[in-house]
């Protein structure tokens, strides 16, 4: 689907701002500007009016860097260590790191226990029975125990 046709007024606004080089215009408007340019002598004339100033602007050169200044910039990493994580990031990362370690530890220990429980031994079964008795006592209705002890 092609974009809506560009009006001559919009073309004039863009040329006044960005000059005659369409590659400098907003990407979303270049195609419709090109189409207008193909069919409008007025649009072509607007671009020609801007070309002379573009040529003048093309003469500008970046600022010259003195060797001493270049050296100062290059030495920044030597003279200034990179900062540590910001307090916010530290606050964010510390719990995440803690959770990750806990999860990893849980997996390792869990795997170890799973192995030992694959084939229960007689002693373990006996222990389990004792544990079950304690659980029943602990989880039972406390009124039963109170009544029994009176």
């Amino acid at each position, binding site marked *: 689907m092609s974009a809506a046709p560009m009006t001559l007024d919009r073309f004039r606004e863009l040329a006044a701002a960005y000059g005659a080089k369409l590659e400098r215009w907003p990407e979303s408007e270049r195609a419709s500007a090109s189409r207008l340019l193909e069919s409008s002598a007025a649009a072509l004339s607007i671009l020609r009016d801007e070309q002379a100033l573009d040529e003048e602007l093309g003469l500008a050169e970046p600022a010259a860097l003195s060797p001493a200044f270049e050296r100062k910039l290059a030495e920044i990493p030597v003279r200034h260590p*990179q900062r540590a994580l910001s307090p916010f990031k530290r606050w964010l990362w510390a719990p995440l790191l803690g959770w990750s370690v806990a999860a990893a530890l849980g997996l390792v220990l869990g795997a170890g226990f799973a192995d030992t429980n694959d084939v229960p031994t007689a002693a373990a079964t006996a222990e389990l029975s004792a544990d079950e008795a304690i659980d029943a006592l602990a989880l039972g209705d406390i009124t039963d125990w109170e009544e029994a002890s009176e």
Partner: protein
Amino acid sequence: MPTPELSNLDEATLLTSVAEGNVAAYRELIRRHASRLLRLTARVLRDSSEAEDVTQETFLRVWQRASDYSPDGSAVGWLYRIAHNLSLDRLRRRGKLESFEEEASDAAPPSALLHQMQRKTALEHAIETLPERQAAAITLVHLDELSGQEAAQVLGVSVEALESLLSRARRNLRARLAQTLGSSAGEDSP
């Protein structure tokens, strides 16, 4: 000389490497942008010594805070915005921000000097006498070749406001160049 690997990387990737402590990536950013950032800060501050200070501070921030850059935005815009904001801070400290924002400089070179000026010098002077925001807009888009969106991000304005700044800047430049060179400079070529 930059290593071929580094010269192929875009600014966002370089910033990510700088955040990991890569000094070579940091130096590549200096190679690409130091002289342009110096030009921008000089345009805003109109003082070459202060411009060097601000450019140095900009690269210090790049080195120490590259991890603050979010890949959602333009890396070039992020870089130039630091330099522009630091320049504005300097102007505020000087108490001159208001006058630089909307008023053009009254400074004019002596008339004898005008006749000796080459077109390049005339252009430099014409840009220097623009209001600060217009000078910054024209430098970012027409000299440093940032996109309109990136330049708007640097200046903290909408794209529409940037276009308005650029139009006024170009109109003023054309008038100043015509006045300085006394001919059709900056106007329609025959």
